[in-house]
């Protein structure tokens, strides 16, 4: 069977990115858009756009029944969920499975297995993948016993959490009982699941993730790793590949661990296995698996030359994995900066509105994934990602240089953006040296704030 029409259940740059690949593959694209997005660039470029509901995501992009009805109504063979919204809701994948619409992603059961963080942790252990010292705790007594064994500082994590949500840091053993009770109650109300588990908190950690592709029958390949340590409140801002400063052996072990995990699940489609690299112990631990295409996937695409969305579609179409591990060649370095409509001067407050002018960079080794052009509106209902600027170069210093030129060539008027902030990070010797950990950005922001205060008063 051949997929000939895809419903895209998403918006923004990822919707446009999927539409472009559909066009390249001569597949018809139908965009499911909210009222607020009917005049967006993706809505104009899709072969057809259907309005699925009002601007509010709960009434449009988050409605499983409406999305599947739209797919059936336009006679789409397949559905691409993008990232965010319903992409990792087992309910959407399941309803697609029931209604005979091909879900371009993993099976509902796989989404469920990795969505339950404790289940994912257990699977990782069973696959021989290292996990941070810790485990499930049901009572305060159990927490204290485990706490004594692994030693502080601790992280209490909600089983239903993930992506930085539902975590609580505890520095002292004696604070565990009260923190446990609070965490359980919070998890219950936030995720409808009061279960928590305890892990040792890694003070100096880097966020390194491995991109994989699986055929759903146990065959999996990896496409290398990405370092996403430049984060603010668990929101990634800059991603790069390869992860700087890892030994060849360490890199090979982390790739192998990702493969072991995905093979154990017989994972289907594109996915990412996230690890925390413990700098002090020269070790890595499984964090979670993201069962979707990720925002930062282009850095992997530009160094491998592999179109991940095209591979997702091929796998969904039953054509299996078209690559062997040996076919995956990674050349050079790539960096991505996420350009957000938010104001770093005002604690990164979102700045929706109308973009008066948008000039994006181009040139050798520069790729821009964006749905924003001059005159585009950025509605306040959705996340603030405007564009991803991706550069590729033979080595990291040249990649940084290219990104600095690309940022300088970008002009956005009408709304506040984090462009200047990115330029400052790229100019920072610590970032340039490579291999920063996840505490880098908060410290950088603090330094930057102090410098600006001195300037203002000096």
């Amino acid at each position, binding site marked *: 069977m051949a997929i000939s029409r895809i419903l895209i259940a998403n918006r923004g740059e990822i919707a446009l990115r999927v539409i472009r690949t559909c066009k390249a593959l001569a597949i018809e694209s139908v965009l499911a858009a909210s009222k607020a997005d009917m005049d967006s660039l993706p809505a104009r470029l899709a072969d057809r756009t259907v309005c699925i509901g009002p601007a509010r995501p*709960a009434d449009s992009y988050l409605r499983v029944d409406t999305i599947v*009805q739209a797919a059936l109504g336009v006679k789409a063979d397949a559905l691409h969920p993008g990232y965010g919204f319903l992409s990792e809701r087992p309910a959407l994948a399941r309803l697609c499975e029931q209604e005979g619409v091909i879900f371009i992603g993993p099976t509902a059961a796989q989404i469920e297995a990795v969505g339950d963080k404790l289940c994912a942790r257990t699977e990782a252990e069973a696959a021989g993948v290292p996990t941070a010292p810790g485990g499930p705790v049901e009572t305060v007594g159990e927490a204290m016993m485990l706490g004594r064994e692994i030693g502080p500082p601790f992280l209490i994590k909600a089983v239903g959490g993930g992506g930085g949500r539902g975590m609580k840091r505890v520095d002292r053993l004696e604070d565990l009982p009260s923190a446990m009770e609070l965490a359980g109650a919070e998890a219950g109300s936030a995720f409808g699941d009061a279960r928590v588990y305890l892990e040792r908190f890694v003070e100096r950690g880097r966020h390194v993730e491995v991109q994989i592709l699986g055929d759903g029958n146990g065959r999996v390949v990896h496409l290398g790793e990405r370092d996403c340590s430049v984060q603010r409140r668990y929101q990634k801002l800059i991603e790069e590949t390869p992860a700087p400063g890892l030994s060849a052996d360490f890199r090979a072990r982390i790739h192998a661990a990702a493969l072991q995990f995905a093979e154990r699940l017989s994972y289907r489609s594109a996915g990412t296995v996230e690890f925390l690299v413990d700098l002090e112990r020269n070790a890595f631990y499984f964090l979670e698996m993201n069962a979707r295409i990720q925002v930062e996937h282009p850095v992997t695409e530009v160094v491998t030359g592999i179109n991940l969305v095209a591979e997702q579609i091929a796998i969904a179409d039953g054509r299996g994995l078209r690559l062997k591990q040996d076919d995956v060649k990674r050349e050079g370095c790539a960096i991505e900066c996420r350009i957000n409509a938010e104001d770093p001067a005002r604690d990164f407050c979102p700045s929706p509105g109308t973009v008066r002018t948008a000039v994006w960079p181009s040139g050798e080794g520069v790729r821009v994934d964006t749905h924003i052009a001059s005159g585009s509106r950025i509605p306040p209902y959705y996340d603030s990602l405007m564009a991803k600027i991706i550069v590729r170069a033979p080595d990291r210093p040249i990649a940084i240089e290219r990104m600095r030129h690309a940022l300088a060539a970008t002009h956005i008027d009408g709304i506040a953006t984090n462009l200047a902030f990115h330029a400052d990070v790229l100019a920072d010797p610590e970032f340039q040296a490579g291999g920063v950990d996840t505490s880098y950005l908060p410290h950088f922001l603090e330094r930057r704030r102090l410098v600006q205060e001195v300037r203002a008063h000096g």
Partner: protein
Amino acid sequence: MTLTAKDVAEIMRLLEQSSFDNLSLEIDGVKLNLQRGSAVPVRQPAAPAPPAESQPQSVRSVAPKAKPPSEPGLAEVASPLLGIFYRAPKPGEPPFVELGSKVEEDTVIGIIEVMKLMNSVRAGVKGEVVEILAENAALVEYDEILLRLRPGT
């Protein structure tokens, strides 16, 4: 994450500066609904539709993609949901309304099916049906004009 009074004030300011009339926000279980004051003339807000319940339709003046009205002053009945539109309660039965039908605000003019869930659509205004735009058993989009009425009478 919690919302402080300062956050709310900031969000209100953003809404004020934006081109939108209302804002609904949900962060970790905290719901915030903001609506611009009536100083700005607003079109009836499109009601977030409870799916399994019938409800009157907001009547509006501008619609994308619809053919122009045959006469001025017509009221429009727009679809509250994306789904399959049915003009009759069951196949083979007469349609809820025909051209020339007189309707009250709560007269059912059709059914919209969303994944086997039937939602009845009401006229929302009193008047006479003069145009039927939506086809039977076809997909209609959210806010698509289903039919036009001559109000009053």
